[in-house]
């Protein structure tokens, strides 16, 4: 296991290195002068341009520029945003990141679960009406023109039915008196989610180690207790109503993202299930007289999950990609919107920074998936 994780981390460091290199050479390769982008922006004072040039080593030979770029990036110096001058790029991105993570991790989790659930259902009842319905609607939603579709969702649920807010991530009227910033709440939400995941993970791990109550309900009851404890704890923080407001604003984007992205996971799960369903241990499980649902969920689906989990990376990356559009339509100021605005306003340092951040984010996705994989597949865990 250690070997596996070491090798994967090595690959990731390499990937990060390549992303940074790619960013550098893309800027180099674009028509026009690399230096010009950094130095010709009329909003930047003339002397500041010189300074920027020097700090990026634009007067030096290419390979030295490259080394400087690499050093800058690795030390978190992405330069200064033109559009937010003189805020450092890293600060702008750090402000947007929690929002993107909260929204897109939840959306990916929901869509992954839905896709997996449907996938295993349609594989199990192959050829049923459900399969046709799910495949066609899944593929249609998957290829639906996202901006129009997202807008339609807003129109229906926020405007016509009036159930949910029209975009944004909070309601100013609720937040007016709040003493904390939204990012504060986002960070607490993230921390809570992380704590809960760790808690659930540890509970399951302990359960598995002790072997005793592995099949019992106790661990689930403990996790349920944890789940109940969270809102109760939040209620006492005094900012619970703010978190609730954010959650309310998250429903529609999450629903939209889920609808457009569940099909990928669903169809993959279906194929993976069809393959595992032919395995002898599934037949054995059935022969053992286990209830159909146990055979399906604990044996077929549990094994089918392994290749599907690998695709979670792509689901996450797909979500990041979707964020460029979804964030715009839902007025959700995350990294995707930042990237698009930076591109439109030619805020090149911010573009590069956002790209590296998004690259980092997808690396993070790889890490999460690797850890999950190790947890889920004993064959790797015990190697």
């Amino acid at each position, binding site marked *: 296991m250690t070997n596996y994780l070491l090798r994967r981390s090595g690959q990731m460091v390499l990937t990060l290195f390549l992303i940074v290199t790619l960013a550098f050479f893309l800027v180099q390769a674009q028509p026009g002068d690399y230096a010009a982008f950094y130095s010709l922006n009329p909003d930047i004072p003339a002397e500041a341009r010189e300074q920027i040039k020097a700090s990026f080593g634009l007067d030096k030979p290419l390979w030295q520029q490259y080394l400087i770029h690499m050093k800058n990036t690795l030390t978190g110096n992405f330069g200064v945003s033109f559009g937010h001058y003189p805020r450092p790029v890293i600060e702008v991105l750090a402000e947007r990141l929690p929002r993107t993570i909260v929204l897109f991790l939840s959306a990916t989790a929901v869509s992954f679960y839905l896709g997996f659930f449907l996938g295993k259902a349609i594989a199990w009842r192959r050829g049923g009406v459900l399969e046709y319905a799910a495949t066609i609607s899944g593929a249609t939603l998957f290829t639906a023109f996202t901006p*129009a579709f997202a807008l339609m969702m807003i129109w229906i649920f926020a405007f016509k039915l009036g159930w949910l807010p029209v975009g944004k991530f909070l309601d100013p009227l609720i937040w007016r008196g709040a003493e904390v910033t939204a990012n504060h709440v986002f960070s607490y939400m993230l921390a809570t989610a992380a704590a809960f995941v760790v808690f659930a993970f540890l509970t399951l791990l302990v359960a598995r180690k002790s072997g005793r109550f592995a099949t019992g309900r106790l661990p689930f009851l403990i996790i349920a207790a944890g789940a109940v404890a969270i809102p109760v704890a939040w209620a006492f923080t005094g900012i619970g109503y703010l978190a609730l407001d954010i959650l309310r604003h998250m429903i529609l984007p999450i629903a939209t993202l889920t609808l457009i992205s569940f099909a990928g996971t669903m169809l993959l799960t279906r194929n993976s299930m069809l393959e595992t369903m032919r395995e002898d241990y599934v037949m054995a499980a059935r022969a053992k007289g286990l209830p159909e649902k146990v055979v399906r969920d604990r044996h077929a689906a549990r094994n089918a999950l392994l290749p599907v989990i690998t695709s979670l990376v792509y689901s996450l990356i797909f979500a990041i990609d979707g964020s460029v559009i979804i964030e715009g339509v839902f007025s959700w100021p995350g990294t995707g919107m930042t990237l698009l605005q930076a591109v439109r306003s030619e805020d090149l340092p911010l573009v590069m920074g956002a790209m590296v951040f998004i690259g980092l984010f997808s690396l993070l996705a790889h890490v999460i998936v690797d850890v999950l994989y190790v947890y889920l597949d004993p064959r790797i865990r015990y190697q």
Partner: protein
Amino acid sequence: MGEGTSLFEDAPEIDLSRGRLDLALVRLRMAWRTLRDGWAVFVESRIGVLSLAIIAIFALMAFSHPILMATVWTPDVYDPVTGYAFDRFEHPSPPDWRHPLGTDSLGRDILSQLLFSTKSEFILGITAALVTVGIATTVGAVAAYYGGLVDSLLMRLADLIIALPGISLLIVLSALFNLNLFYLALIIGVLGGFGGTAIILKSQALSIRVKPYIEAARAAGGGHFHVIFVHIIPNLLPLSLLYMMFTVTGAIFAEAVLSFLGLLDIRMSWGIMIHTANTGGYLLAGANYWWLIVPAGASITLLCSAFYLVGRALDEVVNPRLRRHDR
């Protein structure tokens, strides 16, 4: 998806000394047989057949545009970019017999735009797919055949590329370069070709490499290139075809999104049609101005999902483990 059926599983029976023509003939015959068998499996998927029919309809539409322009449509009125429907006073105007899908806010015929764009989308999709598959089969075959350092390098590169979010990357590229349809196809093709598709084709190529007929070909004195291009790559083709379908979907979708965001340098496409409707403020108008959004929007969805579903159906042909129980 690791192992699939091979087109020419029984190829080693061919005596290599019998000359290329015979070899080609035998290959052709076998390819035909495989195709026929594959088709039999394919038609079992109702969704696949339906999707193929949709693609065929779109192909017809693409071909019809130049014909219509040359015969019944005068460029003054029907040119997708510079035309203007003089017979109307208000634009966008609703459909009637002269403009079956109405006109856009600039007085241009929507049907003409739709048909014209269909052609571009096909060119885009197919170029991207060919580039992807061309690169991916070569990369996959070479990586599998040589192994070692070549393999590691190519596969690390692939790992890197699949870690990149495609649309975001294209947006960044559009900021740096002036992207037109051809460059877009090329970039999508290259990203796909060196990325995920290469990995999948490589694992397929690996299973082909260990087949006895490859040994036979090498023993018969086939050079590296000969083995790769004559024996390995043809056997990768069925799987490549499958991934071509997915690439087409991706390319058309990417074009639509980038055009919608106004980041591409092209005059007309489905994405531009929606973009025009959007900048005119008609995206919300829904039912009142459906012809501005529905034809292009539905075309994107239909053609993308058709290619996608054909790919899925092909998957069942190529990957026997997905087939129904059968003896």
